[in-house]
């Protein structure tokens, strides 16, 4: 069995007494896309820094295609940072030349195709580019080496909706061709559209790591509307199968982890005017996960 292209095992990073990443274990298989979600300060960027060797893990291991990171790893690993880094004095074409000289797998035809996709002019100097254009250049550079492993930190940052869609398509295309993609985003919809699996971090810990479809089938929302105010729920709120209960006027909303039918039966026994069970979307799953500690 081949090792997953990205494998983190118990990754921990401490800065003094502060633990930025706390025992994160995560595998991203070849041909799959993992979306990394989390509130600001959750440890996503620090995780990326550790994977890329920008920061030394305090504990745990990182393997890229089954081996520790070496300079040679970067022949097949591409990284798009949150704030695209470019050499301000150079043109876009100069950056492509740099990449052509540095990477054996650099594909000039692919680079030209991507420049056209993002409507970039090779003669433009980096210092004149907008934030979105810089991101587009960084993405062009990353995908031009036809990487087997892609790490993207907020890859659509500053891009317009059309180019954001292009980025997602590029990731999906790369995964379809066997690459492993790990990307972070604050836009849950992007993760829902592009990723097969989702990892959610909170306070340095990985609190969710699952295939998105499994997550969606596991959690449901039961919405009930009563004729008057919501009646006394009895022991319903403390039922371990319920993740969260929200009440607003005559509306009761219960997020369930499993056995939603049984919970619906219990609510139905309170004689609501109407009741329905709906699937959770990823945004609700994310909100549930990050707010669970406050429940």
């Amino acid at each position, binding site marked *: 069995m081949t090792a997953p292209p990205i494998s983190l095992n118990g990754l921990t990073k401490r800065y003094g007494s502060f633990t930025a990443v706390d025992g994160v274990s995560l595998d991203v298989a070849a041909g799959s896309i993992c979306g990394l979600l989390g509130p600001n300060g959750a440890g996503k960027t620090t995780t990326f820094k550790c994977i890329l060797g920008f920061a030394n893990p305090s504990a745990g291991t990182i393997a890229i295609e089954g081996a520790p990171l070496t300079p040679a790893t970067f022949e097949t690993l591409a990284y798009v940072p949150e704030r695209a*880094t470019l050499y301000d004095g150079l043109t876009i074409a100069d950056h492509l030349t740099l990449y052509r000289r540095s990477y054996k797998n650099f594909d000039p035809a692919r680079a030209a195709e991507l420049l056209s996709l993002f409507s970039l002019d090779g003669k433009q100097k980096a210092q004149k580019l907008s934030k979105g254009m810089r991101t587009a250049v960084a993405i062009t550079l990353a995908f031009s080496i036809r990487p087997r492993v892609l790490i993207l930190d907020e890859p659509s940052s500053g891009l317009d909706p059309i180019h954001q869609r292009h980025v997602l398509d590029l990731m999906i295309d790369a995964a379809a061709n066997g690459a492993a993609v790990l990307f972070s985003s604050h836009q849950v919809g992007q993760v829902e559209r592009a990723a097969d699996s989702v990892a959610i971090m909170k306070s340095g810990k990985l609190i969710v790591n699952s295939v998105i479809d499994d997550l969606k089938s596991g959690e449901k929302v039961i919405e009930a509307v009563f004729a008057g105010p919501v009646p006394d729920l009895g022991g319903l709120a403390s039922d371990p199968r319920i993740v969260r209960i929200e009440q607003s006027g005559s509306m009761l909303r219960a997020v369930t982890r499993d056995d939603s039918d049984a919970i619906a039966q219990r609510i139905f026994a309170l004689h609501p005017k109407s009741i329905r069970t709906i699937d959770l979307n990823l945004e609700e799953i994310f909100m549930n996960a990050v707010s669970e500690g406050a429940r």
Partner: protein
Amino acid sequence: MEYVEFLRVRRTLLWYSGILALIVLVILTLPQVGTINVHGAGSSTRFAPGAGAPLSALATLAGFFAAIYATIVGASLNRESETRDLSWTKPLSRTLLAVRYMLLDLAGVLVAFSVALGGAAIVATYMHFPPVFDPQAGTQLVLAFGVGAMWYGLLQALTCAFRSGARAMNGILWPVALAIGGLSHLPGPLGAVLRLVDLINPLHYLGMTTSDGPMSAEQTLGYPMPADERALIVWCLALGFCAIAVYVWPRREA
């Protein structure tokens, strides 16, 4: 990414050479001088027109300018922090990358030294002091270029561990170096400490030896030292500082 450093070095050299050329042109418009007296502590050397300017003296001047150039390029590893997402994700060891940067920068320091030496020779010739190869010239050339290299290495060693601060270090290093040199003759413990710190001050070693004997800062400060010994120390320190930077920079966390 060494190509980027090459472009930086080339651009800096063009500016540096342009400014030096301007200085030389201005001097060439000035009236020619008669006799030049160079005073050292306890000695005075008199240069009369036609006598020739010792190459060692011109080398000392060139070393000073090489140190100025080294100040401009001397924090290249620190500056690279701004673009580390590009340079540290290259399929090349960071140590090798640092070494390549330094070799390029030091080649630039050598060119800057040579340009300054050429400019000094032109001015000296114009003033009827054509350069002459004195016995100490060889050693002094090695020493003076070494001072530029040491300045470069010192800046790299002081800044490579940090994400920023290169410009601040560039700004304060010259005043600090001059102040330490000036104050190190103070009596008491402060003077002793400053004399110790002065040992890593490149300017401390930038003296020259004429046929009349040593004429260097060390002599003023009570550290007479032959030029060949100073050259050896300067190069050891320059390489030592560069080695520190090569060791520290790749291990630095981003």
